[in-house]
């Protein structure tokens, strides 16, 4: 339960942070949340990854649906991807990777401080 709360907090915090700051503010949020929650590094990575992955995935899907798939297929073609779902998956994976590394780093810094 606590793990899900941490994921939820990272996602929510990122949403707010991105309103005011650059894209990589999601990493700062994941880092800080995992610093507070004190998980083992592997679990912290998983939590950070899941949070940003889901946040970016859902945001991209929501925008693509409202856009009725006008832009996403063009972007997929631009990057030589076979379809737009894969393009959205790439978006989510990049976000997930950044969130995961940030969470992992947060956990390691917490361990150093203890």
């Amino acid at each position, binding site marked *: 339960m606590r793990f899900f709360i941490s994921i939820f907090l990272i996602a929510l915090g990122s949403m707010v942070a991105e309103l005011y700051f650059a*894209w990589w503010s999601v990493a700062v949020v994941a880092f800080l949340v995992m610093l507070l929650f004190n998980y083992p590094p592997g679990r912290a990575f998983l939590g950070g990854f899941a949070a940003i992955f889901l946040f*970016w995935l859902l945001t991209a899907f929501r925008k693509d649906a409202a856009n009725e798939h006008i832009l996403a297929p063009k972007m997929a073609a631009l990057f030589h991807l076979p379809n737009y779902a894969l393009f959205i998956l790439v*978006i989510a994976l990049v976000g997930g990777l950044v969130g995961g590394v940030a969470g992992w780093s947060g956990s390691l810094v917490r361990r150093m401080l203890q």
Partner: protein
Amino acid sequence: MRAFGAIISLIFLAALIFVLDHPLGILPPIGRFLDPVNGCLTAADSVNKDFSTTLKIPGLQNAAQVQYDERMVPHVSATNDHDLYYIQGYVHASFRLWQMDMQTRAAAGRVSEVVGNKALKFDRTQRRKGMGYAAENSLAAMEEEPRTRIMLDAYTAGVNAYISTLHYRDLPLEYKLIGFSPEPWTPIKCALLLKYMADDLTGYTEDIPLTYLRDMLPEAEFNLLFPERIQGTTPVIPSGTAFDPPSLVTPPVPSDSIWVHFKKSDFDDKRTENDGIGSNSWALSGSRTRSGAPILCNDPHLGLNLPSLWYEMQLHAPGINVCGVSLPGAPGIVIGFNDSISWGFTNNYRDVKDFYAIHPLSEDTYLMDGKPLRYSERIERIGVKGKPTVIDKVKYTVHGPVIYDAHFEGPSRLKMPLALTWMAHKGTNELLALYLLNRAVNYVGYVDAIINFQCPGQNMIYADKQGNISLWGQGQFVNKWKEQGRYIMNGATSSTLWGQLIPMRENPHALNPEQGYLSSANQCVTDSAFPYYYNGTFYELRAWRINQVLAGLHAASVEDMFALQNDTYSILAANTLPVMLRYITTNDNYTLELRNWNYRLDAESHAATIYQIWWSYLYSDIWHDDFGKVPENLWPLPERTMQLLNTDTTLRFYDDKNTATTEHLGDVIQHSYQQTVDSLKKLERTIGLQWYKVKNTTVSHLAKLPAFSYGELKIGGWGNTVNAAKSDHGPSWRMVVQMTKDIEAYGVYPGGQSGNPGSKYYASFLKNWVEGKYYRLLFLANGNEENNKQIKYTWSLQP
């Protein structure tokens, strides 16, 4: 140990963010770009986006309104000129900012700043042509005239008001992709855009190849193949029109050494391709229409790009209510109509760009009338992304800038220093012409307006509600001696300098001719009765077809006009194919198709493909051995070739010089047919023979990104038909206006109102354009109407 792990992880995280926040090779910064909140997906406009809004814009003087109709065409209603052009700038920027930015960068030779080294050659060419110099001259003229000054300043402020609202997340997609940001707009950018059009329309000359050919060929053959005026032209200003008596006497040809002669060693064999551009326009008197009111039609053929060159608008303020297409980046309506009149443009093609051979005496001086003259120098600093600034010193002579020399070679690597005298360099004010034209209420007002339009020279078609039709070959031209500027001139004698300007009211024009119609399609401007000398690059095929059809129309409807603008009948095919088939005895499927063909280059036609391929082989087989090494690849025109095939079956050029035997017309036709059959067999194994697939008309994104472009459009026609849809050029705006009491106007262009590839309005007109369908243009009586059902969104603008 724990500290070590933590520090490593922090470094790793920082490095990851750094890498994803910076461009990698041709890739944009991956993290920043893919971020669905602020990155590329902000361009994914919701299809249900509500554009209605109330905007507080400090620069406005009074409240104003913009109403968008269902096609996202804005109808602007303002209370004064300042606000009108301010809003036009704001609206253009809202929908087309990146395009405006790129096109003015292209005009100025500033593309390398954002894309790097690969655009350096292009940028240097622009600088050497004197594009910046030309724009500065025109800007001075526009700022001196109070009305155009208001236009420019207000428009600029409007663009900047929009730019100042932008954060990274709001930038057009292409900025994020290429990795730069908009800079503040300035009036010089408007001037640059207008010069960009002038270059597009008057930049093409044949002076260099004609100079070469005149020395290479006996005079009789040169005149036979490259006549100044082709026989049988149906000129823009109908034959027999009485011209105003000339106020200037044509000067005599100077007796000193005026021409330049090339040596073969001045060139190497590298060849370049040309792609001529053209346009159609015509107007019918009420006597020839079903409604009894004049009908005006125009379709300028320009590069087919997205975002489209044109942006539809209606502009209303006291003293003006005008509708039509504007150029994003410049104020006013370029082609369109108002309450009283309608007008359109085709390119005039009289030669206003001449070359002079310069005789350098030292690094700083050149020869003129036996004495040394100093160059002035213009330092061109070309910023190059990721590289040091490139400095190009361009030398300016009394003739103009030295465009080519050993440091910057000309066509076919020509190193001879050539200076350019070009009407586009002059400080002209075309914006004033548009300002007055948009407000003109009758023929007199129309003429007073267009008389300010100096370059690019345009054939300007006109029709009004009072029933008048008119056509002017308008532009600023020079009183030249015979053949002045047709070839490269000696730049060391003042006798070759341009002389007096011809008063523009003496430009050839026709008003309400007896034949009841007027038309232009880039053909020769006048018959030989016109008192002044001119040369130019004129094309006849579309004009012949248009005049043929118009002559037979007596109760024309707008539907007849739609049909003519989309006409694919090839005069070239109708007049060459019978000759070609005469020499073919085989009866295969291809010749069978051709014998049953109606000479129409329809989208799905197989015969069209067979003919076009055969014609291009035949044309090449006739001329390539004789003219293959001519700089800029100048060969006799297809229409001239067509005439020769019909009148002279023994021309020595039919022989292929590269073979020991002597070939006759029949041999070259049979040989080209064999080549055609081979090509057709290959095509049948791949894409098939449908004409539209073979010619592949494509509307390309300005950054040449296939993902944002539309190819293999199912449209017929080619450059030699009225519907001139070529591979990358074609009818950029088709307009038909019937001047009834309530003006009935139709139009379509191959694009959409939004420049955003993620918008549903990005290419929303493309399908109708391909199918030859039109939209009825909404023209609001007072610029706005409260309860018009076609209005979808409203911007309420407050100061």
